[in-house]
């Protein structure tokens, strides 16, 4: 910890992790900066004043300042979302297996019926994707009812998970194509990691979105 800026950056990270909203973080940091700058001018550096455990200091300060906080609970949220998505993936796979012969029959229909092949493709991939997203959202809503803003988080996930799916599917397909559609374990692991990474990122982003919205409302109410 060399400077006031790095001390405040550490404190800000701790506050963010602790669920302190943006306006409160800014107010706490501004107050602290003022004190630290004055102390530095008198020869006392941030390390001397705050000690080695800045995150603990930051949490104590947030508690004493009485700021409202909503813990992100990202770890639990992501774990349950992924478990839900995996369960949804299983159901989706079963659906695909069931749907496949049906789609073949549809595709074999005479052209006069006018069923575009894109419809079949969207149905083939879209329905299982819908099951995955629904399972992930339902899992976090049902298993984490005690987490604040979980309803809003679920709503944000319903928007962001499909977007993540749309982005990661061509990426994964391109990777599979680049390997000649290899089924080697390491290739499959990378493909799974790409999908899991996209789901994780979308879930974390959804949580952040839900909390940001909440902090915005709190800040608007306090003006």
């Amino acid at each position, binding site marked *: 910890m060399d400077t006031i800026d790095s001390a405040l950056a550490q404190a800000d990270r701790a506050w963010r992790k602790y669920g302190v909203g943006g306006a409160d973080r800014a107010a706490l940091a501004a107050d602290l900066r003022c004190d630290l700058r*004055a*102390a530095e001018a008198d020869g006392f550096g941030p390390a001397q004043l705050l*000690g080695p455990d800045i995150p603990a200091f930051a949490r104590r300060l947030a508690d004493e300042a009485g700021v409202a906080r909503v813990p992100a609970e990202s770890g639990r949220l992501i774990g349950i979302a992924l478990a839900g998505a995996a369960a949804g993936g299983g159901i989706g796979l079963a659906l695909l297996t069931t749907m496949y012969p049906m789609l073949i029959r549809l595709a074999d229909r005479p052209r006069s019926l006018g069923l575009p092949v894109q419809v079949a493709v969207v149905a083939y991939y879209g329905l299982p994707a819908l099951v995955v997203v629904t399972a992930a959202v339902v899992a976090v809503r049902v298993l984490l009812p005690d987490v604040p803003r979980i309803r809003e988080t679920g709503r944000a996930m319903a928007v962001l998970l499909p977007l993540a799916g749309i982005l990661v599917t061509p990426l994964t397909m391109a990777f599979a194509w680049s390997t000649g559609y290899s089924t080697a374990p390491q290739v499959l692991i990378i493909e799974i990691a790409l999908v899991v990474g996209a789901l994780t990122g979308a879930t974390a982003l959804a949580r952040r979105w839900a909390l940001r919205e909440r902090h915005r409302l709190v800040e608007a109410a306090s003006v």
Partner: protein
Amino acid sequence: MIVGDPQAAEDGDRQTQLLRGALDMCLLALLASEPAHGYELVRRVEETGIGAVGYGTIYPLLTRMRRLGLVADRQQASPTGPPRKVYELTTAGRARLDAWQQQWTRFTGIVDAILSQRESDTTPARS
């Protein structure tokens, strides 16, 4: 492996516990005698001999007392650097300090009486 003195460690813990219940009152008392900025208050606390209490403890406490309206801060120009935030007692802070002081005096009086009783019980009677 260096093993510290367990008695000294226990004494330290005990002192910390005692301090925890009285530190906010001590800070109010110190500010009542003269307004101070955060790290100056740390120095003043140290000078009282009550124990080592760092800025990391005092600054959050000051923040709480400010939230509760017991202290207020104002900017004071400094000849050596940026303006300092100086904390001083509010009227509510003085009233609270008076109330806490009375409570503390009553409490320590009771504790003293209990300890004196124990001393008189354990002192052998002179013949």
